[in-house]
């Protein structure tokens, strides 16, 4: 995929997303002209960009959408939810096409058919009924000129060359409408870009009034074009002004009579082509870098060649200026003056004698006509690019202040800085060795100093890159309005979505991990939480339900609250369901508080929906939400008041790339425990522990905490072998419960990059991943929740 196409995809995806948001905005506030303008601009850009890459179906759809939007803007079409539906559908299709482009660099044939169909429906559904046949390809009011006299205004050589090429020629009569300037059109520019354009003859529609009374903003011109492109291509080119053109076939003249002339013409153009080739090759000779002492000879020889080539065709003046240039070049011992002279000469040649038309074998005649060089001329530069009353502002060339960088590049940087952090951690080991093995305390100190510097720089780099990876959670929230709108429509409910704090920034991995759980939670709220309007009214609530999504930062974590004012969760129902499914036993049910009962929804295999609906009950429940949050170190809390609503609070780390772990020792091995789970480390004498059943417990600051032996959990050795009088206990809170882990000892806390276990190892329970230590050894990170 070319970088340009990549750029196109990035931009197009943004556009599709932004348009969806704009459409919803427009639906909620019908008169929102800002949303409409932005919508129009986006769709227009999409159309233009797609055209650039030749994605016809995409152009088709965006063009149809643009036409509809134009009607809305003109006030001919009112916005209603059906219309928004249609436009959303168009944007969805555009999104699908982008996926197809991303995968295959082309658009799938099935999508192409959809595109044509959708564009037709858009046009027929929204344009024809409101505005009649006016917009549906208006019939052309222009007829071809009565005679072919205009051809006589084309220079003889050009006309003959065109006829001699043997290609069928088309004439185009283009009579721009008088008011076209006010629409930001530049007919001459359209003419200039005509495919296969050979010549343009300009005349006028009405007799010129005296110059003093001329209206410069009223177009009074007629363009007659001669082109060697097909009729279809020409009609396509002029499709926006289809009613202002006529395309017709131009009969070629008597070929026999012109054959002789043709020959002469071809010879002539051949010679001119050769001459030009020589000039170009001489220029190349001058450009070669060479030792100074050879420049003199080279300049002399080139000068002679040029003189010989141009003597027959150029006047005395040119030859004198050539001689002057040669002298200057020799005087300064540099080919520059001669190169300048050659450039001047070449530039003068382009229009006068035309660049060499490539003559191919016997086909007879130039294949690419000289005037094609219009396309090769330098692009329009400088000056202001705006056209009069432009409807869509042309992009200004501004200095770039925002870069769009593919995520993969940032990920690579992140990986590299991770390795750097690890590599840096090797230095203290090195310092220790220098001191112990070589007895060089000075060297060790210096290494440590260097380490301190590298540590600081690495830290800053890491911070910097982390900043780059931060995305506003709004990028996930943007999908919600659409989701809520569609779902509530399907369910026949009225829901107002309130989104707050969408600017809160979190790491992009977190943002990604957030998407699916959030959608699941919202679906749940819509499906089970918020009641239908009638039920709400009966309960004394407003018919319109309210769904709040609020993100906020809390230290190094981000909290996301999803709150609805629906019917809430009935603990009794939950208890019964859980019991029916055999998830809890009777004894447990009785001792369970309402609050605890609600948490049962997080059990795997629990789904409260009576029937598996299309929306939330797809066989997965809240346990999936909890598990996917677990993976990124997030937690979820559920609270609910029956009849008043439910709120779900998600808490996630802001960043997950580098984590701090506490190192513990057990049986001579080292393991890591994520520091965010660690509460404290304590020493407890054996006398202060008690055995309740098989479980050893202790009382710590008035709280009973169960003690687990790390050795036992990890199956390293039986607990009974332990005869020490004191336990080293790591007090941790992996889930909601506080536990103690008996270990052999503690080592320091370090920054590591936790890599998940991959391949067959991924199935190993109890480990969150691995990390590479500075001395090259591998640290296993424990997942306490799974271990217990």
């Amino acid at each position, binding site marked *: 995929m070319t970088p340009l196409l990549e750029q196109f995809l990035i931009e197009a995806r943004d556009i599709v997303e932004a348009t969806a948001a704009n459409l919803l905005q427009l639906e909620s506030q019908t008169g929102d002209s800002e949303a409409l303008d932005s919508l129009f601009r986006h769709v227009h850009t999409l159309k233009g960009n797609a055209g650039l890459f030749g994605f016809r179906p995409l152009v088709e759809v965006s063009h149809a959408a643009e036409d509809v939007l134009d009607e809305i803007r003109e006030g001919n079409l009112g916005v209603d939810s059906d219309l928004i539906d249609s436009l959303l559908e168009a944007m969805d299709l555009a999104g699908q096409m982008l996926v197809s482009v991303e995968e295959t660099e082309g658009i799938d044939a099935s999508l192409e058919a959809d595109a044509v169909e959708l564009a037709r429906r858009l046009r027929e559904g929204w344009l024809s009924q409101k505005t009649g046949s006016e917009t549906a390809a208006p019939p052309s009011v222009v007829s071809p000129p009565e005679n072919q006299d205009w051809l006589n205004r084309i220079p003889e050589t050009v006309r003959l060359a065109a006829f001699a090429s043997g290609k069928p020629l088309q004439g185009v009569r283009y009579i721009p409408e008088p008011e076209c300037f006010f629409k930001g059109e530049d007919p001459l520019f359209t003419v200039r870009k005509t495919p296969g354009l050979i010549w343009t003859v300009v*005349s006028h529609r009405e007799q010129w009034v005296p110059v003093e009374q001329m209206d410069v903003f009223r177009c009074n011109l007629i363009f007659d074009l001669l082109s060697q492109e097909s009729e279809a291509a020409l009609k396509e080119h002029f499709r926006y002004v289809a009613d202002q053109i006529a395309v017709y076939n131009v009969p070629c003249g008597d070929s026999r009579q012109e054959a002789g002339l043709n020959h002469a013409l071809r010879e002539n153009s051949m010679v001119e082509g050769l001459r030009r080739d020589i000039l170009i090759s001489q220029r190349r000779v001058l450009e070669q870098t060479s030792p100074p002492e050879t420049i003199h000879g080279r300049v002399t020889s080139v000068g002679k060649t040029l003189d010989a080539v141009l003597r027959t065709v150029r006047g005395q003046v040119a030859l004198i200026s050539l001689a002057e240039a040669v002298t200057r070049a020799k005087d300064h011992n540099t080919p520059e003056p001669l190169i300048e002279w050659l450039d001047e000469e070449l530039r003068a040649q382009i229009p006068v004698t035309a660049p060499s038309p490539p003559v191919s074998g016997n086909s007879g005649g130039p294949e690419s006509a000289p005037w094609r060089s219009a396309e090769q001329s330098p692009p329009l530069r400088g000056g202001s690019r705006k*056209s009069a009353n432009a409807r869509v502002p042309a992009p200004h060339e501004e200095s770039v202040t925002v870069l769009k960088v593919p995520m993969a590049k940032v990920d690579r940087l992140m990986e590299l800085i991770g390795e750097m952090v690890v590599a840096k951690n090797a230095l203290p080991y090195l310092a220790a060795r220098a001191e112990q093995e070589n007895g060089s305390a000075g060297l060790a100190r210096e290494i440590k100093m260097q380490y301190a510097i590298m540590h600081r720089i690495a830290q800053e780099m890491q911070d910097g890159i982390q900043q780059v990876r931060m995305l506003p959670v709004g990028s996930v929230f943007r999908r919600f309005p659409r989701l809520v709108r569609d779902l509530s429509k399907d369910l026949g409910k009225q829901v107002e979505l309130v989104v707050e704090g969408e600017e809160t920034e979190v790491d992009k991995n977190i943002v990604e991990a957030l998407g699916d759980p959030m959608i699941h939670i919202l679906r749940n709220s819509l499906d089970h939480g918020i009641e239908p309007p009638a039920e709400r009214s009966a309960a004394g609530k407003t018919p319109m339900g309210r769904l709040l999504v609020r993100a906020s930062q809390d230290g190094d974590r981000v909290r996301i609250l999803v709150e609805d004012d629906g019917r809430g969760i009935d603990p009794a129902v939950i208890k019964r369901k859980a019991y029916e499914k055999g998830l809890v036993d009777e004894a447990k049910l009785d001792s369970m508080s309402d609050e605890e009962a609600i948490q049962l929804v997080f059990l795997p295999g629990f789904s409260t929906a009576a029937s598996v609906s299309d929306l939330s009950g797809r066989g997965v429940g809240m346990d999936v939400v909890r598990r996917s949050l677990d993976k990124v170190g997030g937690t979820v809390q559920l609270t609910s008041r029956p009849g008043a609503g439910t709120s779900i609070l998600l808490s996630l780390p802001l960043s997950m790339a580098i984590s701090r772990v506490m190192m513990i020792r057990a049986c001579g091995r080292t393991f890591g425990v994520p520091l965010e789970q660690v509460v404290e480390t304590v020493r407890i004498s054996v006398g202060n522990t008690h055995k309740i059943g098989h479980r050893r417990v202790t009382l710590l600051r008035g709280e009973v905490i169960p003690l687990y032996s790390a050795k036992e959990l990890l199956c390293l050795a039986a607990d009974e072998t332990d005869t020490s009088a004191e336990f080293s206990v790591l007090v941790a809170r992996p889930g909601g419960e506080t536990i103690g882990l008996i270990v052999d000892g503690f080592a320091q806390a370090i920054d590591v990059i936790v890599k998940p276990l991959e391949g067959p190892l991924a199935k190993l329970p109890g480990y969150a991943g691995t990390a590479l230590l500075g001395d090259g050894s591998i640290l296993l990170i424990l997942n306490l929740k799974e271990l217990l």
Partner: protein
Amino acid sequence: MPIEYLTGRARLQGYCTAEEAEGLLEWILQHPQGAVDLSEAEHIHTAILQVLQCAKPAIAGSPHDPFLRTLIGDGSAELRGEPQ
């Protein structure tokens, strides 16, 4: 500055837009003897072309741009062409 008004000469440069058509027409009216230099124009808006067609000023410096050259020609022969 796409149109530079010099003594007796208006020099069109780069892309001359529709906004400049009126100014050019005024200048031509005030300077009947003035010439319009198109050598450095890269594209002129239809409105500018129309001013040249209607007012028929002297053309100094034929355009380097090949397309404009086909319209304007070496002098202004094309401009003075007879209407159909």
